[in-house]
């Protein structure tokens, strides 16, 4: 069904009783040209781009739970392309451009809101580093503005500028950054992919790979039976190591828990996304009114989808240091998701050493903003057996070659990225 003002008016006249499911909950067929493991944003976006851009429509997306039940439904919904290193800068801008046309492409309201992403700086050295990153963005055609304290005081008078330890000197603003409604992104890709013939199969957990005589992956074994596949792509975030292990692979990845938080709904307060530069705290306000925020990962390997109190305390301290007035807002909910933390903080989108198996992993805790870009370049790789030029550096063998893309400069310690 096509959504428009007319379909809305028609549905309103019939008392909203005739809405149809927006995507088809399919049963598995025997064989597909491409099987995508993981029905999150990345997997569904990959399937949609395969069908819409690359003409491959005999595609299945397998999801062990329900679509969007993993990190796609657990993030803080921020979109941005303010990266400084070659490899990242171009890729995230490709993704940003796809966000800007996503709703028209998918015919689905994903509530993409370019309200701006502001990174605050608190020292001369941090200002210089931000100026450099902003310049890198601008020479690559990405918008960035370095604001001083006077400009910020006009924009956000409630910030704690006079914090004795971390006074706010200014910020790097990307106005095209912002937020999107994470569940609607999942449903939108499911809606558009399903309309092009992609089978979305839920409650279908992959339990192993089948191989042909040459050792090439020929399909997957699942909780709903064996499914043949010309190619298999995995986009399973925190479960990447577990799925890769079924094919006998070890990855440069650790799974860690990241917590996110939402407050009770309050009147409009925060006009954009902002981040505290002297700790780790990022916050925006949802259209429903809740403050959506988060900070560091807990720092230890976990598959538990829940975290511990020291990080809750650290995140709330960050919030209080930045915006003291939120101290009386009550926390509504808090949850955890499992991040596929790579050894250099950068994703891997590449063929695996096993013929027929393709890897999309290592998103650390920045996967949501990458959703459309990741889907596009992964579909490109699956369709053409060749990396897209904006993902050409996201290779699995870069650790062996010493070609890491380490945006934070932390080295091979995943819990620090």
């Amino acid at each position: 069904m096509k959504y428009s003002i007319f379909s809305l008016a028609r549905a309103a006249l019939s008392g909203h009783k005739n809405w149809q499911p927006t995507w088809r909950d399919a049963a598995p067929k025997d064989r597909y040209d491409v099987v995508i493991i993981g029905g999150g944003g990345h997997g569904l976006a990959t399937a949609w781009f395969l069908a819409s851009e690359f003409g491959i429509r005999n595609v299945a997306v397998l999801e062990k739970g329900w679509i969007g039940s993993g990190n796609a439904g657990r993030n803080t919904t921020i979109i941005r392309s303010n990266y400084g290193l070659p490899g990242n800068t171009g890729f995230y801008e490709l993704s940003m451009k796809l966000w800007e046309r996503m709703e028209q492409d998918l015919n689905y309201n994903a509530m993409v809101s370019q309200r701006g992403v502001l990174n605050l700086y608190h020292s001369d050295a941090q200002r210089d580093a931000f100026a450099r990153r902003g310049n890198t963005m601008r020479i690559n055609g990405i918008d960035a503005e370095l604001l001083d304290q006077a400009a910020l005081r006009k924009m956000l008078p409630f910030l704690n500028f006079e914090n004795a330890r971390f006074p706010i000197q200014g910020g790097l603003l990307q106005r095209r950054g912002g937020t999107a409604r994470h569940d609607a992104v999942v449903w939108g890709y499911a809606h558009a992919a399903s309309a092009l013939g992609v089978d979305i199969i839920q409650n279908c957990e992959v339990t192993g790979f089948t191989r042909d005589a040459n050792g090439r992956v020929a399909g997957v074994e699942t909780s709903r039976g064996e499914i043949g596949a010309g190619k298999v792509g995995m986009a399973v975030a925190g479960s990447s190591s577990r799925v890769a292990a079924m094919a006998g692979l070890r990855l440069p990845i650790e799974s860690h828990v990241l917590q996110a938080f939402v407050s009770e709904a309050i009147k409009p307060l925060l006009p954009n996304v902002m981040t505290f530069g002297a700790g780790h705290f990022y916050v925006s306000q949802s259209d429903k009114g809740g403050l959506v925020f988060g900070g560091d990962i807990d720092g230890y390997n976990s598959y538990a989808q829940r975290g511990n109190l020291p990080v809750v305390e650290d995140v709330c301290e960050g919030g209080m240091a930045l915006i003291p007035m939120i101290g009386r807002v009550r926390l509504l909910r808090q949850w955890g998701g499992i991040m596929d933390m790579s050894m250099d903080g950068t994703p891997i989108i590449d063929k695996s050493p096993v013929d027929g198996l393709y890897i999309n992993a290592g998103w650390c805790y920045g996967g949501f903003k990458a959703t459309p870009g990741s889907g596009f370049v992964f579909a490109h790789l699956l369709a053409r057996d060749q990396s897209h030029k904006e993902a050409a550096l996201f290779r699995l063998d870069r650790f062996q070659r010493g070609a890491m893309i380490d945006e934070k400069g932390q080295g091979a310690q995943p819990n620090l990225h």
Partner: protein
Amino acid sequence: MRITCPFCGERELGEFTYLGDAKPQRPSADAGEDAVYDYVYLRDNIAGVMSEHWYHGGGCRAWLKVTRNTLTHEISAVEAAAGAGAAKVGA
């Protein structure tokens, strides 16, 4: 999650810093690049019971070997890591 340090008793998580999987062993100096790559970058990333190194920086400053389930966060054993200075003092 609370960790029972063999020297200090049960303490809250904030006192500890995580290093990671205790299984990888530093290869010998002449082991070659593949062995070093494996040690530095590749991980089993176990979903289940895992042996790992933690540092008790907010207490006795000993390195500890903790046996913990990554699916449930349940800790089944804590002992001093081999070679930890404080372990020798405590022994």
